[in-house]
């Protein structure tokens, strides 16, 4: 039981990171139906910005978090403007291939600038272990969890209660109708990218803190897993991404803990395939059929 609880706590910490990245995937997919394959790399860039801010400028954790979020938002919007905007009316596959291209570019570019090797992320937060009986929780895990919850609450408020959130929801339902109703569609899409990228940036800093090491390809696998998390919850649905992120994190940790870490990725892919076949719209989604 102790071991199970321990795994759950580790799983939820990892899941927090997936959930933050999944939110960006789901928001972007919801609004322009694009699988933003480069989203995992934004998360990697977030980690690198955090790394530079803490090592070169000597700033603490919270300034690094904020600067990284802002930097990623800027990068996200720039990518959207340059690479995705010209493809608004292209097929989804064309857009997906473009996103793959952006992903390659960001990974290789970071390798070129920062070196291909692993860098050590500094310990900017004192890491103490708190014992609850036999279950260990680190202060880092508490920080990761709290930051994630705060960001999710803020996002939920933003989407549901503000004018720009209403615009985002309107564009995701019908961009043309939204435009006719006076919504600035381009600005709304850019804003969605900014928010999604900022969340990925935050996840990047958190993961740097948690694992202490970063590298230019660190975004590939978590990016895909976050996407799977988004699909699991129902892509385009914000609570779905949160749910999916925590779920995938927990499953992965449990498989690694009770079976073998060599199989954990395979199990996650299997979950993806099962959900796509059984309920392609995701756990919280509704199925729609093509009109003839």
């Amino acid at each position, binding site marked *: 039981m102790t071991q199970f609880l321990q795994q759950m706590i580790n799983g939820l910490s990892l899941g927090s990171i997936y959930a933050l990245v999944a939110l960006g995937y789901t928001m972007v997919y919801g609004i322009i*139906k694009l*699988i933003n394959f480069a989203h995992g790399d934004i998360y990697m860039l977030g980690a690198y910005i955090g790394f530079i801010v803490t090592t070169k400028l000597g700033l603490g954790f919270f300034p690094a978090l904020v600067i990284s979020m802002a930097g990623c938002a800027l990068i996200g919007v720039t990518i959207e403007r340059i690479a995705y905007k010209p493809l608004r009316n292209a097929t989804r596959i064309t857009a997906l291939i*473009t996103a793959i291209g952006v992903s390659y*570019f960001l990974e290789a570019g970071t390798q070129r600038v920062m070196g291909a090797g692993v860098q050590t992320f500094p310990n900017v937060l004192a890491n103490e272990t708190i014992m609850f009986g036999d279950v260990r929780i680190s202060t880092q895990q508490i920080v990761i969890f709290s930051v994630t919850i705060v960001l999710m609450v803020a996002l939920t408020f933003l989407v549901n209660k503000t004018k720009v959130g209403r615009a985002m929801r309107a564009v995701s339902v019908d961009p043309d109708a939204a435009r006719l109703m006076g919504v600035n569609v381009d600005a709304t899409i850019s804003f969605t990218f900014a928010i999604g990228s900022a969340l990925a940036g935050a996840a990047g800093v958190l993961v740097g803190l948690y694992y202490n090491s970063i590298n230019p390809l660190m975004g590939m696998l978590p990016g895909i897993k976050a996407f799977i998390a988004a*699909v699991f919850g129902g892509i385009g649905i914000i609570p779905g991404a949160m749910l999916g992120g925590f779920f995938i994190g927990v499953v992965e940790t449990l498989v690694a803990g009770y079976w073998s870490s*060599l199989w954990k990725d395979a199990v996650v892919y299997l979950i993806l*395939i099962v959900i*796509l*076949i059984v309920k392609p719209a995701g756990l919280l989604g509704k199925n729609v059929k*093509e009109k003839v």
Partner: protein
Amino acid sequence: MKNWMKKENLLWLGLIVLSYAVLNILISAGIINNVYKTVLMTIGINIILAISLNLIIGITGQFSLGHAGFMIIGAYSCGVMLKSFVSGVPGVFLGIIAGMVISAFVALVVAIPTLRLRGDYLAIATLGFGEIIRIVILNMKITNGAAGLILPKAVSWHMIFWAVVICTIVVVNFGRSAHGRACISVREDEIAAEAMGINTTQYKILAFVLGAMIASVAGALYAGAFYVIKPDMFTYSKSIDILVLVVFGGMGSITGSFISSTLVSLLNTVLQQFSSVRMIVYGLALVVIMVFRPSGLLGRKELTFSGLLKVLKKGKGAAQ
């Protein structure tokens, strides 16, 4: 009409024999040295990979990101065969056959549930399957896990040349038949195809399985030609590399796949020392192609002798 078709076929046959002869002469004269010969073999393997994926994506319109999964099946079938059972050329042949049988079976298992999905969802599901295949091979004993297999060289460039010829003929003949047209109709409009009496599911599966089998041939040849195979050479990045070849040449164009495979393989050789630059160029090229020319170099067009004749005639007409 039939005679004319034969003429076109004869011209292609002439081109094949001529290329084979020229390559033979260049190699025996030492103009193509061992380094270039390796490039030549890479080009051949890439062509087979590209046309096999083109059959699935370009002709049938089913977007797969799991193609490396079938390449790895071929590679390990041949690798294990060479290492543990039969060595030399017979081992390669048996490895190819074993790879085709296994990948046909696996492709069937993958295709039946996933091909109901559309577009980007299908892409991600096939990516997942490709990775699962790789992870299974990674965890097997006979494949020697993450360390991979070190193999004796058993495949010559001659074999690769003729494999390219045979695979191309298979794909082209399939594409230009009633069954190929049925696949194209699936790409164009699934609902209309169904209404015209075409079992769209069956044709999607057929194209997927055929493409997977051909990809496994490429994998087997790779194992026999390049000494080392490891599971991490066949991640979804490899699937994306193959996708780049298809997209760059033009989805649906076989001659386009030939051109792009040749160009990209050459580019890779030139940039070999600068792998991060290579990836930057790759990434930028994908974005630029998608933004400015999403149909690739040739779109769905093919370079043909009859097309060439038409162009020449037009040129003459314009000159007069």
